[in-house]
């Protein structure tokens, strides 16, 4: 991972802003979906698709591509918007989100959109799938990197801890997990619904290489990924503190935006705010 120049960071910020606008437009068109988490992860998805990943949008099934697994599939608007921005499919298609016949299903489904690595949504499972991919990289001596995006609420699932244990046991150094630590889940604050406490320490006790970063600071996240790659003996987790709804002041840190889409007025207000940042 080459270090980021100031110029590159500026470029990434512009791209992330465009992706946020796409997210709001598509969710408004769809009339339902998950806004908060999608906006909160826009910076990390931008960094991954426009700097980190070895991938080729013109050859999406290139065998040696890095794999990015979105475990908490409900934030897929950010995945779709980023993929469109990167050139996997036309941005116009984003408006079909959640509509009958769309390739952009309400939760990702690779039967409809084959450029996705997995069909996902039910929590905890994408993590296990990423672990399986990293096991293959290990036992067959391959060199692809496996990135998994998880939510923090997803750590309520027993399945998640099963995956954490297995990855630690197998010392899956090709696996890098990024946890969207935004402190919200559908019923409210994560620490009230089911306290997660210090996730970084918890991972550490299971044999992971751990980082905690500001998920909106491109340099910090990139540096953690760089250091994660240098570790050849254990899986890495990056606890990324993010602000749900990031980019639209009124929505930030409000759990009500976890699972709803903006109406016309709300969308216009948000788009205006994002335009003002350009």
């Amino acid at each position, binding site marked *: 991972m080459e270090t980021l120049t100031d110029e590159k960071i500026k470029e990434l910020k512009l791209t992330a802003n465009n992706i946020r606008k796409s997210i709001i437009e598509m969710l408004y068109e769809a009339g339902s979906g998950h806004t908060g988490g999608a906006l909160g992860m826009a910076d990390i998805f931008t960094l991954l698709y426009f700097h980190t990943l070895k991938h080729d949008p013109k050859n999406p099934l290139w065998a040696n591509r890095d794999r990015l697994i979105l475990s908490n599939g409900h934030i897929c608007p950010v995945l779709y918007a980023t993929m469109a921005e990167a050139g996997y499919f036309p941005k116009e298609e984003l408006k079909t989100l959640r509509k009958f016949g769309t390739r952009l299903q309400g939760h990702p489904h690779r039967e409809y959109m084959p450029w996705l690595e997995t069909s996902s949504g039910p929590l905890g*499972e994408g993590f296990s*799938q990423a672990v*399986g991919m990293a096991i293959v990289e290990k036992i067959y001596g391959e060199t692809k990197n496996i990135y998994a995006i998880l939510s923090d609420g997803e750590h309520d699932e027993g399945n998640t801890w*099963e995956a954490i244990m297995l990855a630690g046991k197998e010392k899956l150094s090709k696996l890098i997990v990024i946890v969207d630590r935004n402190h919200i889940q559908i019923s409210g604050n994560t620490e009230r619904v089911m306290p997660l406490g210090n996730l970084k320490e918890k991972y550490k006790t299971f044999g992971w290489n751990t980082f905690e970063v500001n998920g909106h600071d491109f340099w910090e996240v990139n540096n953690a990924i760089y250091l994660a790659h240098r570790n050849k003996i254990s899986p890495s987790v990056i606890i990324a503190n993010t602000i749900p709804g990031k980019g639209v002041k009124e929505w930030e840190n409000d759990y009500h935006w976890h699972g709803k889409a903006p109406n016309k007025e709300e969308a216009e207000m948000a788009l205006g705010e994002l335009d003002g940042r350009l």
Partner: protein
Amino acid sequence: MLNQNLKLNTKIFNDSVEKVSTRQGFGEGLLKVGGDDENIVALCADLTESTKTNLFAEKFPERFIQVGVAEQNLASTASGMAAMGKIPFITSYGIFNPGRNWEQIRTTICYNNQPVKIIGSHAGLSVGADGGSHQALEDIAITRVIPNMVVISPCDAIEAKKATIACAFTKDPTYIRLARNNTPIITTEDTPFEIGKAQIVFVPEIGLAHVGIIATGPILYKAIMSARELEKKGIKVKVMNLSTVKPLDENAVIALAKETKAIVTVEDHQIAGGMGSAVAEYLSQNYIVPIEFVGVHDKFGQSGTPEELEKHYGLDIPNIIEKVEKVIKRKV
């Protein structure tokens, strides 16, 4: 008499018939395909010896993943390995795999359409002494209801070995249902096997059959023994081995129904949702005949010998015979 075309085990009617568990057949099949193709991998949730996955694990330790007692992770990790081009076999008891991890199987294996092979051992009442908590009686129902899934319930160790080898080279998510106990060898190495193909294993000496018995799993042996008893009473019976429950061999089932006009299904499983239900769903829409079901009727199992349990829950030979006589009375 046995269908001569299938080259079945001619010693099946001897008291000294050889008995081997279907899980043993699986273990040998996995070992065989493991040697044939280095893309075969196996994952187990701590029950390595009980599921006979140890045969593979000892020979190919680098391709064996021990995930611990964690069946949900077992299923989804295998999905990820399959996405990278591998052919994973995941093994545990049927009650946990596909029981405990059903939603992981639905989403990460079948919804993702990955060729993971799900091996559930210790299915059915025949587990015996372990008791009801460990007797999987619902596994056929919960697997056959998932799109993309193939469901196989082999009748003996030889067929289990063949099914294991055959499924390794298909693209389909597949469930293979296995039993713990040693059960009679019904087929031979020369008996043909194809996923999705039913076989008539027992036929009348002459003429058409009065009743068709359709069985799946090792209980096929009891269906054959029942047919032999019924033959002595002058009731002509054909017995079908429906080892692939899904996809259903519709042509074979309807042919048997058209010939006999009466069907009895036999399985070591709940009647609700099982193989008999699959047969009934098809026949009720395509060729209506009276059907009687031998299976467990909405009850959990309990401790006991397999024989005691089969008698108690109505899965033994006298009960199969009774159901055959009953279905004949219902013929129009």
